[in-house]
């Protein structure tokens, strides 16, 4: 079943350079899904910190995406590479408490920016859900 219909909570951290109109473009999905979807724009994906990802999971996200600019296209040169390392580190950390590492996923935006964040997010939502609701949600899911 795809993620949208599986009723999962999705958090999306993304680099603002991907869609300069993101504050407008994301409203449709926010209206549709309410607090089941949360968008976190960043000045650069390299600003992502493991702590942000942990807090997102702790507050009930079942799946967390980090969307970076394509390889070689980072406005700040290495931000997307740093994001990759931090996502990897956090995956290791959550695996230590028995959560699937794939609850965190790094996505590179397609080449040829800008891209509409709404399109990007809908594409992610239409993907097959590989993990169910997070056990962190507790018994009251």
């Amino acid at each position, binding site marked *: 079943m795809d993620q949208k219909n599986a009723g999962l909570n999705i958090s999306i951290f993304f680099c603002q350079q991907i869609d300069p109109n993101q504050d407008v473009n994301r409203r449709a999905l926010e209206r549709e899904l309410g607090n089941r979807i949360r968008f976190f724009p960043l000045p650069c994906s390299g600003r992502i910190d*493991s702590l942000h990802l942990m807090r997102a999971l702790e507050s009930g996200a079942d799946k967390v995406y980090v969307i970076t600019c394509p390889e070689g296209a980072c406005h700040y040169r290495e931000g997307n590479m740093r994001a990759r390392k931090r996502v990897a580190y956090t995956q290791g950390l959550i695996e*230590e*408490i*028995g959560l699937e590492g794939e609850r965190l996923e790094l996505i590179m935006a397609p080449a040829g920016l800008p891209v509409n964040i709404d399109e990007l997010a809908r594409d992610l939502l239409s993907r097959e859900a590989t993990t169910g609701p997070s056990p*962190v949600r507790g018994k009251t899911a």
Partner: protein
Amino acid sequence: MITAERKPISEIKEMIAPYKKILVVGCGSCVAECASGGEKEVGLLASALRMDSKASGKDVEIKEMTLDRQCVYEFIDQLTDVVDQYDVILSLGCGAGVQAVAEVFPKVHIVPALNTTFIGQTKEAGLWIENCRGCGDCKLGFFAAVCPVTRCAKGLFNGPCGGSKTDRCEVDPDVPCAWQLIVSRLEDMGRLDLLCKVHPPADWSKQQGKGPRKIYREDQRS
């Protein structure tokens, strides 16, 4: 600084398993510098432990706090007003910090979240290397500030050994031969004369063998 690394979470979980109210305490000094026990790391660990508790249906309270240092009474004292609210302190201090806190609050159970490792430097972001063994008898002046006790695998004072080739240590090719470094630096400084005489055996009693060492300064006592 003193470096440390976080213990595996499975090990930490075992230590805090009997408790319901846990205070995770970090330290803003050495362990913050080596990204193992500072405020951020406290946040990461506490978050992970809270999620783990929730996922296993356990009702556990896990709170966070970070002291500037865990090895000095003036800072440890900040815990005094809150320590009674918890069953256990999960300390992200180095071994010195954990024990210092335990001395101030002997009735409170304190467990270490870190494995304290070595005295070293931040060589690059994300890379820490041991460079001092606290031998109590610093000879860096004779060896171009390259410590043979720490950086030579055999601790030679009259090195190099016969296994040194292409400036790598025979024990670990990732480690430069300390003696190659010492010789080339002394040569650059024009001080190879420092290696002419046989450097005598060290006084190891200054480093170990008599239990915990101490420093006492009458002029610093209140």
